[in-house]
């Protein structure tokens, strides 16, 4: 079946190459580990369990449909954070290709995103099942989710390019990422509803595109609400600006990536 679909797709060497790299990346990440592929699903489920227990029992969260609210937040954020982590080591892990064979460096990023995206698809499928079972709301606005996803992908590529380039020059990028990761984790509203904030604090959804992306994803997927188009437009614009900055930094400063390893 799959073979037939693949046959039908016109041949494109670049896409094939990106797909191959992504597939092998994904496979090696879980190769030979005891639970194999299940880790991809187990990690967010574990986080979900812990946060759910803490926030319902200890903090008594009043958020409606909190389990699904939390689940989609965790997997979207994990997709972002994992992609960022991968990018900081991308020149090291892909040295064997960069040194030996002519390859467009950007392809490495596309394939890295595709590999992490495969993991995301696993989790998202689980979310869709959960949503179907536990949520009786439905709206056609759910079909707008790919728009939110495209926004996230742009933001991820931008982040990867910036982090990968910085990692060439700063070896303590891991620690810097720890700080940023912590700020983003708490500042993106993963386990509390940012829309309950008032006044200037509400601006965070415009400043931090991740926060806006999470809000819009939840509105349409969990609460069957229409998408906040103004928020979406601002988040998208911010992400595109980030991407342009990322591409510029990458083009200008990544040439010495290998000799500085």
């Amino acid at each position, binding site marked *: 079946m799959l073979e037939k679909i693949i046959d039908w797709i016109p*041949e494109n060497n670049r896409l094939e190459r990106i797909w191959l790299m992504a597939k092998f990346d994904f496979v*090696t990440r879980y190769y030979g580990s005891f639970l194999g592929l299940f880790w991809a699903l187990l990690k967010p489920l574990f986080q979900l369990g812990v946060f759910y227990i803490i926030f319902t029992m200890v903090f008594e969260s009043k958020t409606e449909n909190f389990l699904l609210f939390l689940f989609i937040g965790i997997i979207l954020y994990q997709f972002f954070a994992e992609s960022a982590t991968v990018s900081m080591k991308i020149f090291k892990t892909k040295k064997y290709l960069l*040194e*030996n*064979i002519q390859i467009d460096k950007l392809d490495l990023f596309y394939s890295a995103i595709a590999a992490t995206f495969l993991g995301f698809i696993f989790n998202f499928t689980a979310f869709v099942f959960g949503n179907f079972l536990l949520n009786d709301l439905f709206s056609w606005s759910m079909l707008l989710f790919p728009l939110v996803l495209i926004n996230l992908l742009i933001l991820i590529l931008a982040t990867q390019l910036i982090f990968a380039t910085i990692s060439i020059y700063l070896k303590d990028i891991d620690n*810097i990422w720890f700080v940023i990761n912590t700020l983003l984790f708490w500042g993106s509203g993963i386990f509390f509803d940012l829309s309950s904030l008032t006044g200037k604090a509400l601006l965070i959804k415009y400043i931090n595109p991740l926060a806006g992306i999470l809000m819009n994803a939840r509105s349409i997927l969990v609460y069957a609400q229409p998408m906040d188009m103004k928020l979406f437009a601002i988040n998208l614009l911010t992400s595109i600006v980030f991407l342009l900055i990322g591409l510029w930094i990458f083009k200008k400063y990544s040439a010495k990536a290998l000799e500085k390893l």
Partner: protein
Amino acid sequence: MSQIAIELKNISKTYSVLDKDSQSLKGKIMSLITHTNRREIKALTNVNLEIKKGEFFGIMGHNGSGKSTLLRIMAGAYPPDKGGVVKMHGRFMLLSLGLGFNPMLTARENIYLNASILGLTLKQIGVIFHDIVAFAELDKFVDTQVKYYSTGMVARLKFAIAVHADADIFLMDEFFGGVGDASFKEKSEAVFHKSLVEGRTIIHVSHSIKTIEKHCSRVMLLHQGEIVGIGSPEEIIPEYQSLSKKKRK
């Protein structure tokens, strides 16, 4: 006029070496203030070179003469200093004895990956796949992770891919000679001759006078990052030997 495969203009390479602790944020800030822990090492000075399509070109020189740096600049792994121009006309593959594969992947996966990057479609790879495996004599280990391979097996696989996936330019770093057993050596020598006819370009970096003498049509001698001479093996090998003698004294 025969076509050019590789053009190098004004290639210089300066490595800027930092002391270890200056690669952290604190170190970076400190070095901005003190300017002390940056040292510059000149690896190549003003190399100009044109290599024609189909040439078997040798590069000789002692350790630290800049051979490998030059090869890495050709492969696009390292950028030359400002003003340097590298033009590669064709698809190339660097063949060195270090692991050029992902050790966690099997030979099958590495073949697909490398051939795809060289520009072949999956269908085309499917067609030549068995030729690659047979040439590398790895039939029984196709689905073994490359980390279990010996150096010789890796080298054979790499060479087989480069040959069958039709790389136009081979950049060989001490690759040839000492690889594989007698039967494989015979095979690769045969291919070398055939490939010359087919118009493949081969850059062969080596200490081995024997292989340079046997295969190369032109040789370049590098010493401390500068070209000492370019010419036939008969002209250049004696120069290399006299440099060796001076070094020993």
